[in-house]
């Protein structure tokens, strides 16, 4: 009885002590602000999930070379990356699709797009008894995803695949349900090759799909394709390579059926060089050149041209420079396509234009 009473008296005191502890441990703010401590410089980045494995590799490799620079990257999605760099809560953002004009205008200052690597979108499918890679023409892909081509043995699919015996079954379409740069690149491509798609659906990270089932992430789409016979879906090239998925050959504008490969994607970027604008915001889908894979795209880092903090700005510029030079050699191992040499030169110009207080940082 005595013991019970005693604990009863002590408990509220403990609870109060706990509350006080929480209150005090929260109150002293500041201290850990960005770049506060003397010699170590800390940079924050956030954005696209697609290049995240590469960026993490870059950070760890760069950290070994420059122990006094600490860089963190959070893969929160391109949308989040654009939002955070606009609100200046991070030192650099990252996005798969280039920022829109109105987004750039509403930013506090001029933002630069620094391309880092290239990605591509591939078609994958589940068709029993078909062991040769399927071939698709652009208009056929658009009509399948519009729902006008419904059967696998449709004459237009058969025409591209004369020696494949296609089943009579319905095509089940699988697409991404989460907002994603992969969907944006794919629908950008479809909008370019099909006027009907452009008018009815358009391009975006979360378009309104006319037909099909939505899967969450590359793994969700792959799961649906693997588990459901007669399904056609699209995933990132890197993901398809890692998981050894069957991928389709796609006809480009020069009329060849191109197998998706890192070189074919880099070629698509190189071919588009003459039409690439000065700010490097460009879509390279449906490119013209021979041997180019048509559903390819850049992924970008977003940085302010005018850096407020000179020391941090210098560290950021050095990191970007290292990334598009030494960093590119990690790309292929991690299933990304490296930048073509001419784009690296254009990106160098962009990095050299970054300044702080009127002084260039390189």
């Amino acid at each position: 009885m005595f013991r019970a009473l005693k604990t009863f008296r002590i408990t509220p005191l403990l609870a109060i002590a706990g509350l006080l502890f929480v209150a005090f441990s929260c109150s002293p703010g500041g201290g850990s602000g960005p770049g506060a401590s003397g010699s170590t410089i800390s940079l924050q980045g956030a954005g696209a999930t697609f290049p995240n494995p590469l960026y993490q590799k870059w950070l760890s490799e760069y950290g070994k070379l420059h122990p006094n620079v600490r860089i963190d990257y959070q893969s929160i999605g391109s949308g989040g990356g654009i939002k955070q760099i606009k609100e200046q809560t991070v030192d650099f953002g990252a996005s798969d699709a280039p920022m829109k004009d109105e987004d750039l205008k509403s930013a506090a200052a001029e933002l630069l797009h620094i391309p880092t690597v290239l990605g591509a979108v591939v078609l994958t499918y589940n068709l029993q008894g078909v062991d040769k890679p399927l071939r698709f023409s652009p208009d056929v892909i658009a009509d399948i995803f519009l729902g006008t081509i419904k059967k696998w043995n449709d004459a237009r699919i058969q025409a591209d695949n004369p020696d494949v015996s296609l089943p009579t079954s319905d095509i089940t379409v699988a697409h991404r349900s989460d907002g994603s740069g992969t969907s944006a690149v794919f629908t950008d491509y479809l909008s370019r090759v099909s006027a009907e798609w452009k008018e009815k659906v358009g391009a975006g990270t979360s378009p309104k799909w006319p037909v099909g089932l939505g899967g969450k992430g590359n793994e969700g789409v792959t799961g649906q394709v693997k588990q459901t016979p007669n399904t056609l879906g699209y995933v990132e090239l890197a993901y398809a390579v890692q998981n050894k998925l069957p991928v389709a050959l796609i006809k480009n504008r020069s009329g060849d059926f191109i197998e998706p490969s890192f070189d074919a994607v880099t070629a698509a970027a190189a071919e588009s060089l003459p039409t690439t604008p000065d700010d490097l915001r460009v879509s390279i889908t449906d490119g013209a050149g021979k041997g180019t894979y048509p559903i390819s795209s850049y992924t970008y880092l977003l940085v302010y041209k005018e850096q407020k903090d000179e020391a941090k700005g210098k560290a950021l510029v050095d990191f970007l420079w290292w990334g598009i030079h030494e960093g590119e050699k990690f790309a292929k191992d991690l299933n990304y396509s490296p930048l073509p040499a001419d784009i690296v030169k254009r990106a160098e110009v962009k990095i050299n234009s970054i300044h702080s207080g009127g002084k260039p940082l390189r």
Partner: protein
Amino acid sequence: MTGNSEDPDDKLKFVGLWARLLNAFSPTGNPGDAMFRGLLFTAALLSLLIVVGMIVALAGQSMLSIRQFGFSFITGTDWNPVKGQFGALPFIYGTIVSSLIAILISVPLSLGIAIFLVEQAPTYLARPLGFLVELLAAIPSVVYGLWGIFVLAPFLRVHVEPPLQSWFGWLPFFQGPITGIGLLTGGVILAIMVTPIISAIVRDVLTAVPSSQREAALALGATKWETTRVVLVNGAPGIAGAVILGLGRALGETMAVTMVIGNRPQISLSLFAPSYTIASVIANEFTEATEDIYLSALVELGLILFFVTFVVNAIARLLVWNVTRKTGGVGRAA
């Protein structure tokens, strides 16, 4: 014992005020009691503040969308971020129907499990079985989702949906192409996730029904089934609470459902057709929502989910209250 508040001495005046305050919190005048009461009051107030804070934040963030679309946001069926069109009805429909399917399947199942564990099973079976059921409740929902897409969906596609269609195909609920992904699969996976929660609580509720009730029923010559009915009627309010908790989980579940429901904003009577829930669309599209109106529309969906949960819970409570009142006492049920 308390100081006189009329006392000219300041110190004593303060003590008097303190005593009055103490008195308000603890009629017994015990400072420990007052402190205890104060802490409890703070805790209760905190939960209220969190709810109010959430509603205020959601409403504030969704103002843009509320202003632009008004009531048509709730009645609209077109969700097209590319064109800036936002209508929430398909999501509301998908959320409610998938949760209803889950409850329809899981309530009889959970009741069966709980009744067996408490009333029928010998201890050497009840203990491990009860433990396993509780283990099911601890599995992360993303694991349920993966299991759903790799095991449950193909199973339903091959073994469940074709017979359903051939027997009940004349009903609109079982028409259309069979893919294994859709409203039915979403409802079934929710049912599997909700069952352990409901059955664990119902088991505790039934255990708490005094043995004298069972003994009295048995003494009157009741069979096992009739005795169980007595126990169930006694535990009815607790069982209702369990079902409402399960319903709450089903309405808000995100990852597992989004893996198997097909994520298509459409209203279709067919349970085989893909559908979409509010929680899923928020999780799916939040990270890439760049335009302000898009983000605002997603937050408004959150606000709607809040109210859907509130209304569904209220209806469930009313229903239960009605039923328990009608069945009345133990005597009539037995």
